[in-house]
């Protein structure tokens, strides 16, 4: 029965994708991409992948929509006329799709217990996590400790993306053309969202912190928490205006956060070497190896959360400051 639900959601996703491609109003495309993100996150949830679903919802449906809209504010809303060489691109895409579909014929059946991943890798992680790390959420254990080097690379990718956007768009540009009276005039009609938003923002921040530190016991972790906290500050910026948001969290602080996250992660890795183990070996961080692993995971998740928050907020302010 769950499979039927999943298939239905995927059918809705296909309809949404066709609608996104067929429309030429970019704003409609952004709205439909938000819907697509929600549908795929529900599908992840049906497949029992809670951490991925949470990240997809927080980043895809929330932050991506806001960033796309900020970018649309800088450009036009209609798509330009299509280029003429469509036969070639269609042939290339169709060929690649056919090759991929042919490659899936060799994959093991979905949920097959004899598949290599289920007989070698997954049981090892499931057996060894209580022994080495002793936290209930195996996903965080794999992400933070067993495959910690991968996550270090991911943090640096996020860092590089933030730096790249800031190079392209600039940062700390003072707000220009719109006079202050006009910005405040429209808010009179929006008193209700302002009041409700002010009541809710502390709770959203609290929830973000909860997701950050609860990542060892349930779905959560650094990426999701960073996105939720960034979403709370973006809500504040939307309701109270750019100036107040920048006075609450100035550009320097955001750049500091962007740099501090990978620094913390790398420092934990180097601390492993200094204390006698390997790079990113958390067992040597404390007397009890298991406690050391848990401490290490806590620190690197904090680094990840700080990086994601800083990067998302810097990108948002870079877009929003250009638009005025």
């Amino acid at each position, binding site marked *: 029965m769950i499979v039927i639900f999943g298939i*239905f959601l995927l059918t809705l996703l296909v309809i949404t994708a066709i609608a996104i491609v067929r429309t030429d109003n970019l704003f409609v495309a952004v*709205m439909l991409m938000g819907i697509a993100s929600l*549908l795929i996150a529900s599908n992840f*949830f049906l497949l029992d992948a*809670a951490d991925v679903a*949470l990240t997809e919802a927080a980043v895809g449906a*929330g932050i991506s929509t806001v960033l796309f809209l900020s970018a649309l504010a800088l450009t036009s809303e209609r798509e330009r006329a299509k280029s003429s060489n469509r036969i070639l691109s269609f042939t290339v895409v169709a060929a690649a799709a056919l090759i991929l579909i042919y490659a899936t014929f060799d994959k093991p059946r979905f949920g097959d217990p004899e598949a290599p991943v289920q007989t070698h890798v997954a049981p090892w992680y499931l057996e060894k996590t209580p022994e080495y790390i002793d936290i209930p959420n195996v996903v965080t254990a794999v992400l933070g400790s067993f495959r910690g080097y991968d996550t270090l690379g991911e943090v640096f990718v996020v860092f590089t993306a933030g730096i790249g956007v800031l190079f392209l768009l600039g940062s700390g540009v003072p707000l220009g053309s*719109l006079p202050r009276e006009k910005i405040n005039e429209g808010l009179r009609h929006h008193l209700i969202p302002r009041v409700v938003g002010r009541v809710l923002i502390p709770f959203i921040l609290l929830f973000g912190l909860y*997701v950050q530190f609860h990542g060892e016991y349930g779905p959560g972790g650094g990426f999701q928490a960073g996105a939720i906290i960034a979403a709370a500050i*973006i809500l504040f910026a939307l309701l109270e205006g750019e100036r107040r948001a920048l006075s609450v969290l100035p550009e320097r602080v955001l750049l500091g956060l962007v740099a501090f996250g990978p620094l913390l992660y790398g420092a934990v890795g180097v601390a492993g070497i200094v204390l006698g183990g390997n790079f990113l070996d958390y067992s040597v961080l404390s007397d009890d190896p298991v406690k050391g692993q848990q401490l290490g995971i806590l620190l690197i998740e904090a680094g990840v959360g700080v990086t994601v928050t800083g990067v998302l907020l810097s990108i948002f302010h870079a877009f929003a400051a250009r638009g005025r």
Partner: protein
Amino acid sequence: MYYVVTIATLVTMGLALIRAVLGPSVYDRVLAVNMIGTKTVLLLSVIAFLYGRPDFLDLALAYALINFIGVLAVLEFFRNRALRRSTERDEGT
């Protein structure tokens, strides 16, 4: 017990998707996205209990937050666009 609610919610998400694709004005589409967001919250809560994993309710709460922030962001975009256009018109004349 949960199957009826799940089917009803899924069908409503489909209907809202049709509204999002059809809706003649942009506000219809924003309404449809908001509806799909809140239906997703309900769907997640019900399926979390269907699976017997009530600790997945954090996702439903996070979705509710994100949906709210997304709708407000869209409306803020419209307000800024209207303001900018009226400013350009005033400065042009």
